[in-house]
Every structure is written in structure tokens, then in C-alpha cells.
């Protein structure tokens, strides 16, 4: 146990309890208690910040005696990724959440004014629940099973899939959003408690917007990360962990719109109390789903149960009861406005939109909880992605249609320009959809969705331009956000409903045509020994433009995990997405004969006559990194003479023999097998030359046979007559019976393997009746008395080996850029809204303060 860290967490917990207690005293009328509560709170902040700093220090200083540090980091990580291991695991991410939580609390104390006492009591409870989890499952616990005083030299390292810039900033943004949802919850309970049913909306609206922006941003980063690194071609897989950030996001978006409604119309108070509680409950529930291990059989990245399931369930129950009790307690007192709202008004459209958002959230929640729900009735089951696509599509169409009309509505009725604007916007959307249909859009539902998405886009764009023209930049944020939403929905439809994809297998150097694209596999690129292997694929698009794609496929050495990253080529109208599926390294050409040559000596091997002309010592002094020795050869093939120099090179991994290609068949090469410095003789290996290459290869037990060109060869027995290991003679013979095509007995032949003071040697046996065919012994297995037989045939076709092959999936995703662009615009609009609402609140604060004076 790292004691200072544990002390800091306990101190924070104690201070938080003291702060809560003091706030309760303050509510009871103790004048000085509030100041005391604030001081205790500051102490709690200090404790949490100190604990975070300590964990970071342990990580950066590579203290592998701490379980958390050992499990998620190692010495090879660059600083950025090293810091990101802080939130790579369960405990660190809870600490990060708590870190944001205590900082947000500081702002809360500063701005909550008359809500402060009650809000902070509730808010402190939410923080304490996180602290309890951290005290139960401490990030500071030691690595067990080690002798005292010892520390592993290196840690297990960070999952290679997480070593991505987007993924390192995804969790901090995400947990900021999670932490911010506690604010509207605390305000809502405090408002019910203190019977102030309206002002809390003004104070918590900026925080609800912060949640919408940060969770939205986290979802964007997560989706983009999945798209560019995972290689299954999508950005969203309806995985429980993804859903558990989507559902709170939707609930927060509903809350923001409910709060806008209450501020404009002075009603819907009960709705907002319920929504504020719902948003926080969903965050707690999502935490339970993904952190408790209940979905371990159903999710990509669900954490396993670390023994905190009980605590998570406890949190869920406690906060649900607190919220419910507060609501029931005051329900009849909450003022309700009577009177109807006209149908064609912003008010009604907001209500409908909130219902649509909540309906979508409910369906996603239902799907995500399927394993829990079905467990009650029968064996646990999950729902496929098809469920989510099916239920969200119709609601999405309705929702987008609402969003296209609402910019031209007043809270209490239609604007005069409604008809004119709708015609313009719907017209533009219809023209764009028609263009889409011409470009290949099909399917009634999809086309309808495309139309309403574009309708939303154009309506809100028109409204944004209007507002900007009137120089009302401050109110443009909301419309701008919906411009982004329209673009995003358009991008989702075009890229998922209208994408085309095909799988293809590419042998090295060959070109293939797929969907109008010409793909050529150029080989594997690994510039340095530690670099990750990239597959080089040259792509020529239908328009004739060419680029080289570099999808990656490599094995992570630490975890021995196969990692495949796609290559994404971004064009204006579409992305070209190349995902690796399988890489086959191929097979070297079959080894041919081995030649042993002295200086000046010549030998004939198949169609080649090879003469050893001398050594090439020019590389013997090395270039500072390696030393090379060359063997100068004269090769005569088909009457022409050629000089080649295969080399032996010393490198980091020992000697490496570098072959040179030979004329004639593809893949033919010669390389150095060995050099005898004493006698000045060299041994050369030919490959892919045909000639004496093995035409057939088989492993035979006694009595088993093979047939080659009509002749049957039966393995009779080993011949150990000259086998004398004590004298240093390991001579083994294998006797084969030969029977010709006519069945006539061709007699017996013996192939020999010799290993003695003169080295390793094969004495091949010529096969009677077959011209130029010899038998050679390969591997022998003494235990099951089998021998590998190689049939060497001077007339056999050369074996070029097998080329390496790369299988990939090519996908063309039309207009996917709109999705990312739309999300960025949506978030920008959201940030404008945060600034506006935060400013409004601060403005009201200073007005109140001025009035107070």
C-alpha cells in the first residue's frame, strides 16, 4: 500500500463528511457553519488533488511495486501515453472523475448563492460515493506475490489500441461530462428541499450544456478513434460502453431543452426536476453496467468485476431514493401553470422533441440492459445492432422533421415568415435529396431520413444566417448546433446506408480491380526493427489518381496481440477505407542443390554453370554498423555469362546471408551457405532454380511408399552399418525399393546422410529407370522410425515458392466527412450556448449583488 496516497483519500473523505455536516448545521441556522463547511470542502479538494498528483508521480517515476502502475504502464511509453495510463484502468478513471468533481464543486460554491447549503450537501454525497469506491478499490494498492522490497523491472504496458492521441484525451473529456451531470441533480434536490422551484434552472443550465458539449465531444473522439484504428469500418457499434455515454448525453440534451422551456414559458417544472435526476441516475446506472462486470459476456470493453458491484448498486439505490423522495415530498407543492399551448408553437415542438429524445434514450437503454432483463426470465441474451438501427430510424425521422420547422416558430405560435422559409428550406432539401438519389441513394426510409436531415440543416442554416445578419451572435449558438446536427445526420445516413465494400486478396506485385479501383500490393514496409509493419498498397481510383495506402498489421511484442489498423484516405466527397484482414507471408522458393567450390572451380547445377572467382573484401572494414563479405561468382546461363556477388553481412541479429537473383526463372537466387576460412572454400545454396530442387517431399515410415512419375518408391529400412558416433561418424543410410511402371523390380537404392569431421553431407541415390532423378534424406525421426524423402529431379519445373499475399476490405464511404464536420459544428454551437447561458447567469448574479448593496 502506498500510504501517503491512502491517507490523502481518507483525509478527503473525512473532510467531505465534515463539510456536509457543517452545511447541514448552516441550514439549521448556524451562521458560522457555512464558512467552516467551505474550509472543509477546500481540504477535501486538496486531498483529492494530492492523491491524483501522487498517482501521477508513481506512474511517471515507474514505481512498478504499485499494482496499478505495473498493470497499465511500462518504461517504453512516451511521456504523453505514460500520463494517459493514469486513466487506463478502473481505479484511475474513478479518480479522474472525482478530480473533475471536486473542481466543479469549487465553482458551485462560488455561484450557488442561496442554494449553496442544500446543493452542496447533495453534491458532497455524490463525491463521497466516488471516494468510497476508491477507498474500497484503491489505486495505491501494492503488487502482490513479490518478495519484500523487490519491484518488477518493467510493467505490462498500455494496450496498443489505446496508444492513440484521440484515445488519450477521450477519458478526461468524458469524465468532465460525467462529473458535470451531478450539478443539475444536486440543484434539483436542493430546489425541492428549499422550495425554490425556478432559479435553480438558471444556475444549472450552463452545467447541463457543459455535459452536452463534453459528452458529445467524448463520443465524437471515441467514434473517430474506432473509425481510424479498429478497422471494422464503422464509428459506432452500439456496444454497451458506447451506449452508456450516449444515453446520458441524450438525457442531458432533453434536460437542456426542458430548462429552456421552463425559462421561456414558466412551466414544465416537474419535467425538469425529473429530467435532472434522470440524467444523473443514467450516469450512475451506466457506471454500474460497464464497471460491475454484469456485461462481461456481452461487451467489447466492459471492465471485469473488481469487487465493487455492491457499491455501484448501492449508489444507484441511494441516489434513486434521494431523488424520488424529494420529488414525492414536494410534488403537490410544485406550482403548475394551467392553459393550453397552440400546436404550431415552439413550446409544443420542444415537448415533442424532448419526447423523441427520451424515447430514443429509452430504447437504447432497453437494448443495453437486455442481458439483465432477459436474465430474469431465461438465459441472458443480448440484442444485435439491428435492433438499435431499427428503433432509432423512425424516431430519428420524426425528430429531424421537428428540428426543421422549429426555427421559424415563436414560443406561442408561428412566425409570419414560416410558410416562406419552410418552402425555401424544404425546396433546397428536396433538390439535394434528388441529387443524392441520382448518385445512388435507395430505400424509402433512408431517402426519407436523408430528406429530413437536409431539411433540418437548411432550416437552421437559414435561421443562423438571419441571426448573424442581425448581429445577434449570442443567440445563434443554438441554431448553429442544429445546423451541425442536420449535417451529422446526413453524414450518418450517406456513410452507413450507401457505402460499398468488397474484399480482395492481393498477391505481391499483382494488380486487381475492385469497384473501379486498381489495387497493387507493393510489399511490407518496416523501416526500423521497432517500427510497426505497414502493408504498402498502391491504389488508383476510377479517375486515375494514385496514392499509396499504408494499413498496418503487426504483433504487439508485450501482449503478443495481433493489431490491425486501417488506412483511411479522405477525399472531399468520400473516404476510401482499407482494412487489413489477413497477411500470408508466403513461402520461400524450394531450396535447390548446395554446391561446394574452391577458388577457380566450376560446377554445373541444372541450367547454370557457376564458377567461384574469389572473395570480395571491399565491405570487410565495414561502414561502422556492419561488415560484409562477398563471394564473386561467374554464372553462365543459356550461353551468356554474368557476374553476381552474394554477401554475408554481420548485423545486430548475427550473420545474415543476402541472396542475389539469378537469370532464368522468377525467384531463382543464389546465396552463401557457409565459408571455410581455412581452406578458402565456399558453400552456395541455389533456390528456385529447378534442376535439383525437390520435386516431391514426403515423410515415410517403414513400408510406406510414394509414386513419382510412374515409379514406386518404398522405404525399406535404415542402414546403420557405418553408424559409429564414438568415432565421430554419424552415417545413416535409408534403403528404398524401386519398382518401375511396368511393375518390374528395379532393385534397391540407398541414400546416405553423413556427418563426420569433414562436415555434413548428403550422398544422393540415383533412381534407376528415371533419368536425372535422385533421392535425398531429409529429416529423420528416431522415435517413430520415419524419414523425410526428397525427390530431386533435374528436369523438374522450378519452384518459385509462394508470394506473400495480403487480404483487405476496401470500403468507399460517401460523405462521411459531413458526420465529423457536423459534430464539430454541433459542439461549437453548444460551446456558444454555454458561454451565453453562463454569461446570463453571471450577469444576473452581479445584478442581484448590485441590488443587494
Amino acid at each position, binding site marked *: 500500500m502506498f500510504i501517503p496516497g491512502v491517507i490523502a483519500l481518507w483525509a478527503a473523505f473525512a473532510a467531505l463528511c465534515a463539510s456536509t455536516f457543517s452545511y447541514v448545521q448552516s441550514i439549521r441556522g448556524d451562521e458560522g457553519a457555512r464558512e467552516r463547511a467551505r474550509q472543509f470542502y477546500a481540504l477535501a479538494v486538496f486531498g483529492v488533488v494530492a492523491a491524483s498528483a501522487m498517482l501521477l508521480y508513481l506512474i511517471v517515476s515507474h514505481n512498478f511495486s504499485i*499494482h496499478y502502475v*505495473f*498493470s497499465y504502464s511500462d518504461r517504453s511509453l512516451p511521456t504523453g501515453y505514460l500520463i494517459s495510463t493514469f486513466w487506463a484502468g478502473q481505479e484511475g478513471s474513478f479518480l479522474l472523475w472525482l478530480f473533475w468533481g471536486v473542481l466543479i464543486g469549487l465553482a458551485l460554491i462560488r455561484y450557488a448563492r442561496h442554494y449553496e447549503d442544500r446543493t452542496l450537501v447533495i453534491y458532497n454525497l455524490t463525491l463521497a460515493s466516488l471516494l468510497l469506491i476508491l477507498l474500497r478499490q484503491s489505486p495505491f494498492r501494492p503488487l502482490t506475490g513479490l518478495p519484500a522490497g523487490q519491484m518488477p523491472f518493467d510493467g*505490462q504496458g498500455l494496450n496498443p489500441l489505446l496508444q492513440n492521441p484521440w484515445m488519450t484525451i477521450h477519458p478526461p473529456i468524458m469524465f468532465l461530462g460525467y462529473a458535470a451531470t451531478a450539478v443539475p441533480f444536486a440543484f434539483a434536490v436542493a430546489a425541492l428541499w428549499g422550495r425554490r422551484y425556478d432559479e435553480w434552472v438558471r444556475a444549472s443550465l450552463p452545467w447541463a450544456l457543459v455535459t452536452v458539449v463534453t459528452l458529445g465531444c467524448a463520443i465524437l473522439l471515441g467514434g473517430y478513434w474506432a473509425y481510424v484504428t479498429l*478497422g*471494422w*469500418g*464503422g464509428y459506432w*457499434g452500439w*456496444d454497451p460502453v458506447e451506449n452508456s455515454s450516449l444515453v446520458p448525453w441524450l438525457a442531458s440534451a432533453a434536460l437542456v431543452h426542458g430548462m429552456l422551456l421552463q425559462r421561456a414559458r414558466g412551466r414544465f417544472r416537474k419535467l425538469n426536476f425529473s429530467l435532472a435526476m434522470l440524467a444523473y441516475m443514467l450516469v450512475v446506472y451506466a457506471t454500474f453496467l460497464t464497471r460491475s462486470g454484469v456485461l*462481461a*459476456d*456481452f*461487451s*467489447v*470493453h*466492459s471492465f*471485469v*468485476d473488481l469487487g465493487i458491484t455492491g457499491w455501484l448498486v448501492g449508489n444507484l439505490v441511494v441516489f434513486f431514493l434521494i431523488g424520488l423522495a424529494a420529488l414525492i415530498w414536494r410534488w403537490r407543492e410544485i406550482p403548475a401553470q394551467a392553459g*393550453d399551448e397552440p400546436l404550431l408553437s415552439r413550446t409544443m415542438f420542444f415537448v415533442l422533441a424532448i*419526447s423523441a429524445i427520451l*424515447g430514443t434514450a*429509452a*430504447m437504447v437503454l*432497453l*437494448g443495453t440492459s*437486455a442481458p439483465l432483463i*432477459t436474465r430474469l426470465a*431465461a*438465459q*441472458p*441474451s*443480448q*440484442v*444485435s*445492432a*439491428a*435492433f438499435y438501427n*431499427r*428503433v432509432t430510424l*423512425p*424516431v430519428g425521422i420524426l425528430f429531424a422533421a421537428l428540428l426543421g420547422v422549429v426555427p421559424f416558430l415563436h414560443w406561442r405560435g408561428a412566425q409570419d415568415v414560416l410558410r416562406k422559409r419552410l418552402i425555401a428550406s424544404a425546396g433546397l432539401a428536396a433538390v439535394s435529396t434528388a441529387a443524392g438519389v441520382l448518385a445512388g441513394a435507395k430505400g424509402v426510409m433512408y431517402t426519407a431520413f436523408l430528406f429530413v436531415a437536409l431539411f433540418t440543416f437548411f432550416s437552421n442554416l437559414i435561421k443562423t444566417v438571419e441571426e448573424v445578419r442581425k448581429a445577434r451572435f449570442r443567440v445563434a449558438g443554438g441554431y448553429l448546433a442544429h445546423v451541425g446536427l442536420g449535417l451529422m445526420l446526413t453524414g450518418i445516413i450517406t456513410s452507413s446506408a450507401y457505402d460499398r*465494400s468488397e*474484399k*480482395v*486478396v492481393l498477391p505481391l506485385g499483382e494488380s486487381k480491380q475492385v469497384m473501379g479501383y486498381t489495387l497493387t500490393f507493393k510489399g511490407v514496409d518496416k523501416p526500423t526493427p521497432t517500427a510497426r509493419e505497414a502493408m504498402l498498397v498502391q491504389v488508383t481510383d476510377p479517375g486515375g489518381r494514385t496514392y499509396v495506402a499504408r494499413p498496418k498489421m503487426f504483433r*504487439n511484442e508485450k*501482449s*503478443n*496481440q*495481433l*493489431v*490491425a489498423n486501417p488506412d483511411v484516405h479522405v477525399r472531399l466527397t468520400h473516404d476510401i477505407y482499407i*482494412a*487489413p*484482414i*489477413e497477411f*500470408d507471408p508466403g513461402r520461400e522458393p524450394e531450396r535447390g542443390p548446395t554446391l561446394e567450390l574452391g577458388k577457380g572451380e566450376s560446377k554445373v547445377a541444372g541450367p547454370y554453370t557457376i564458377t567461384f572467382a574469389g572473395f570480395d573484401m571491399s565491405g570487410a572494414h565495414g561502414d561502422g554498423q556492419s561488415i560484409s563479405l562477398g563471394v564473386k561468382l561467374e554464372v553462365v546461363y543459356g550461353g551468356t555469362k554474368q557476374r553476381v556477388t552474394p554477401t554475408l553481412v554481420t548485423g545486430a541479429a548475427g550473420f545474415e546471408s543476402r541472396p542475389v537473383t539469378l537469370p532464368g526463372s522468377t525467384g531463382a537466387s543464389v546465396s552463401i551457405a557457409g565459408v571455410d576460412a581455412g581452406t578458402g572454400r565456399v558453400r552456395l545454396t541455389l533456390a528456385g532454380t529447378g534442376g535439383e530442387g525437390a520435386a516431391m517431399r514426403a515423410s515415410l515410415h517403414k513400408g510406406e511408399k510414394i509414386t513419382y512419375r510412374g515409379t514406386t518408391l518404398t522405404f525399406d529400412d535404415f542402414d546403420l552399418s557405418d553408424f559409429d558416433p564414438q568415432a565421430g561418424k554419424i552415417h545413416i543410410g535409408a534403403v528404398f525399393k524401386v519398382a518401375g511402371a511396368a511393375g518390374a523390380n528395379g532393385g534397391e537404392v540407398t541414400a546416405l546422410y553423413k556427418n563426420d569431421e569433414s562436415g555434413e553431407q548428403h550422398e544422393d541415390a540415383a533412381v534407376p529407370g528415371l533419368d536425372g532423378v535422385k533421392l535425398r534424406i531429409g529429416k529423420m525421426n528416431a522415435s517413430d522410425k520415419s524419414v523425410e524423402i526428397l525427390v530431386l529431379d533435374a528436369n523438374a519445373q522450378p519452384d518459385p515458392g509462394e508470394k506473400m499475399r495480403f*487480404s483487405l*476490405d476496401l470500403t468507399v464511404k460517401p460523405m462521411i466527412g459531413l458526420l465529423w464536420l457536423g459534430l464539430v459544428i454541433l459542439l461549437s454551437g453548444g460551446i456558444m450556448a454555454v458561454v451565453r447561458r453562463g454569461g446570463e447567469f453571471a450577469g444576473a448574479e452581479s445584478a442581484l449583488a448590485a441590488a443587494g448593496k
Partner: protein
Amino acid sequence: MKQRTLWTVLGLAVIVAFVAFGAGAFKSNLTPYVSFEKARASASAVQVAGKLVEHSDRFDEANSQLVFTLENEHGQTLDITYKGPKPGNFNEAIQVVAIGRFHDGALEAEKLLVKCPSKYQGIEEKAYTSRSS
């Protein structure tokens, strides 16, 4: 109050219709965990779990798919095909979960979940979804 009644009725109708629609979609897209025999007999998508039979995995280039065999605790086997990249740690997996439909002698998996033994932390998970084209 007339308008309000109308709204309430309409709203309730829409909610009921939506819930019915959602429940229908939910039921028809459930993939239960089943035995190998049931998986063979089932026409809908199911989920099976088993141990990878050693060296049974190969890449079928003609169909661009991964082919392998799972074995359950009773020693029964089931062939699985999967159109997608082989998941990392696949060969070290202690259990493989395949979700898909049985067709032509093999379960055509849409999704694989691979459970790997981890020396220091219970079980770690990775899932891979093939393109649902």
C-alpha cells in the same frame, strides 16, 4: 380542456404504439446463449461459447473468411465462419463467443468476443464486430 384530452389520448396512443414497436424489435433481435445443437437447429441469430480447437483456425481465401471450430465442455464441436480480421489474441483465447446464424454447416458469426487469460487481472475482453453489410 377538450384540446388537452385530445392531446392526452393522442400522446398515449403514440407512446403505446412506440413501446409495442420497440418491444417487437427487441424480441426479434434477441440473441440468446444456446447449446451447439440448438444453434444448428435455430433459424435466427444466436450466441454460442466454446474453446477454440487447437490449429483448427485457417483463413479461407476464396470466401475471405476466418474458419475455425469451437468445442464445448461436452466435447461437441461446431464450425464457425467469420468475415473479418482475426481478433488479436485469438489463438491464446480461453473462450470464444460467437454471435450469428447457422447456415450451410457452420455458424456465420457477425461478432466474436474473445476472452483471454491475463496473468494479473482475471479476464480481459476484446470484441470484434464484422461489418454488418
